[in-house]
């Protein structure tokens, strides 16, 4: 399969008054054409930072790419001009932000907001055609086109998220970065929105990176999954490889153990001991060593590389071959 996005060894820092926060530490990830990739991790793992760096939207003066490269098709994102980036954002790569309540402009009608994308990226398109495109996409996401003259506050949370999705998809992007698109929504609405995104993604034949902290969503809606911990990908593989739980990174294993699920009869949950490593003061070896059940001397000294344990299944652990649950 062809690579669409290639992130290599990316290091991103945020500078604050007190300390330098290492948000991404050697983040390496490839996204292939037509793939739906689930990006899983806890708060502060660097999922959103990865999306923002890809679009070069890191907060100015605070966020900084220290080293590494991001390539989209053949364009080097790090070296692209401002103009080139503007061409990419929204047209080729779009992003759906986490919170539909705050990512819409409250003083613009929703129709105008969707149309704005076309106005900016397709100035040559006849205005009539732009209007029909807006109507079409609204129908696709399940909102009556008659409502396009209404303002965001007149819509419910689920409806607003549909509008945000419509904005992201109206230009038929090749790559869609969805940053927790359903976290703010109820389960029944969540199911509607995810089904919708999946269908739209297929009809436009685009790739999608679905950022979430919910392993269940990944299992049901993605083809592949990448698990992020403390700013780097620690496991990458197909859903079958990762969720069959034959070989896993100890952190992935821990994540599985601490979700209450619908079938197990366990009385107590097994939480991962401790808290995530402080991103302003990272340990020198494996970032997960402190909380890890497989941790040995070697882990505290040197950081492991991503190793291929099966075809297409990568784990960043010295003892990746050990079976899940074995200690």
């Amino acid at each position, binding site marked *: 399969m062809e690579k669409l996005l290639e992130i290599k060894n990316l290091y991103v820092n945020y500078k604050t008054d007190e300390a330098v926060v290492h948000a991404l530490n050697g983040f390496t990830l490839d996204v292939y054409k037509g793939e739906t990739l689930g990006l899983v991790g806890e708060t502060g793992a660097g999922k959103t930072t990865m999306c923002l760096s890809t679009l070069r939207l890191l907060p100015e003066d605070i966020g900084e790419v220290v080293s590494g490269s991001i390539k989209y098709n053949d364009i080097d994102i790090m070296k692209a001009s401002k103009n080139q980036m503007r061409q990419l954002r929204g047209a080729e790569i779009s992003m759906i932000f986490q919170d539909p309540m705050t990512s819409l402009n409250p003083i613009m009608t929703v129709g105008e907001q969707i149309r704005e994308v076309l106005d900016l990226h397709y100035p040559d398109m006849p205005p009539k055609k732009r209007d029909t495109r807006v109507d079409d996409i609204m129908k696709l996401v399940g909102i009556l086109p008659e409502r396009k003259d209404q303002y965001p506050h007149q819509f419910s949370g689920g409806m607003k998220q549909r509008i945000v999705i419509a904005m992201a998809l109206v230009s038929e992007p090749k790559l869609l970065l969805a940053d927790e698109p359903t976290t703010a929504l109820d*389960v029944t609405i969540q199911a509607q929105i995810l089904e919708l995104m999946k269908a739209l993604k297929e009809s436009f034949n685009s790739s999608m990176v679905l950022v979430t902290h919910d392993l*269940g969503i990944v299992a049901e809606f993605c083809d592949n999954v990448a698990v992020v911990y403390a700013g780097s990908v620690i496991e990458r593989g197909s859903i079958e490889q990762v969720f069959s739980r034959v070989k896993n990174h100890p952190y992935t294993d821990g994540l599985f153990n601490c979700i209450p*699920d619908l079938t197990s009869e366990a009385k107590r949950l097994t939480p991962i001991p401790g808290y995530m490593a402080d991103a302003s003061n990272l340990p020198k070896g494996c970032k997960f060593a402190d909380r890890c059940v497989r941790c040995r001397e070697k882990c505290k000294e040197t950081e492991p590389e991503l190793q291929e344990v099966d075809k297409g299944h990568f784990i960043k652990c010295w003892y990746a071959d050990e079976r899940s649950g074995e200690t």
Partner: protein
Amino acid sequence: MSGVLVETKNLKKYFPHKLGFVHAVDDVSLKIKKGETLGVVGESGCGKSTLGRAILRLHEPTDGDVLFGGKSILHMKKGDFRKIQTNMQMVFQDPYSSLNPRMSVNELIAEPLKVCKTVTGRTAMAQKVRETMELCGLPERYNNIYPHEMDGGRRQRVGLARALVLDPQFVVCDEPVSALDVSIQAQILNLLMDMQERNNLSYMFITHDLCVVRHISNDIMVMYMGQVVEYAPKKEIFEHQAHPYTKALLSAIPTTDLSRRNRQRHVLKGEVSNPINPEPGCRFAPRCPYASDKCKEPQVLTEIAPDHFVACHECCK
């Protein structure tokens, strides 16, 4: 019935609105036994938080009754209610906004003691605070730390310590883990269950996460737009759920179990309708795949199996 600690009878809470009344909680009757947990599930805006608050009289109920240990707390004298109130506490959803940023952990946990005076004397109070902190997994070095210096999981431990320091018998937990990461969520759930075992606590556990509710509850109540649509022991709900809304809710949960991946999902159409002056009849009918004319009549909670109540004429046939 013996062993029932908290009971509500046809509890109603309506909020005035310029167009009429918002029926936030409509005719809810429930029973929570000593040492057991009732899980309340529903979508946002279905009235589950209002129900929790109405039971504690944080919202004065519009109609109906709340009994605590067999006594009605709604018609009690203020002084008597104050005494009972210490037995009923609440843990709030958002550990970020429910703690006073200008108080240290020690002050935060001591505050309920100062207000309710269940323990008097400075040394006794300090002792009680120390014990509670230890129980909730807060080491002593956190004494002088302020909320902004802690992460969500530790803040939620402080929230829980504030509720438990009064040795309550009943705690309303309003989405205590939904703002937390999964690995931290498991720690807090374990802590809640340990506390229950140790102090024989009763919980009312409000959440929208069915996996969590399955883990922690004895009975489960499913609410839709202020009304109870299904109320049954946990096992019944997960194995023989009857109401179409419960079915949709259960099938909507994404699971990590790959064998369930390609199952037939009942994806609901539409969204929750307007709770202001709702029509009589089933409030779920506009989204229900089985809706018929009969749904326009008021639905009555009917017992279809022992302790299993459903408000749907279709399921009661």
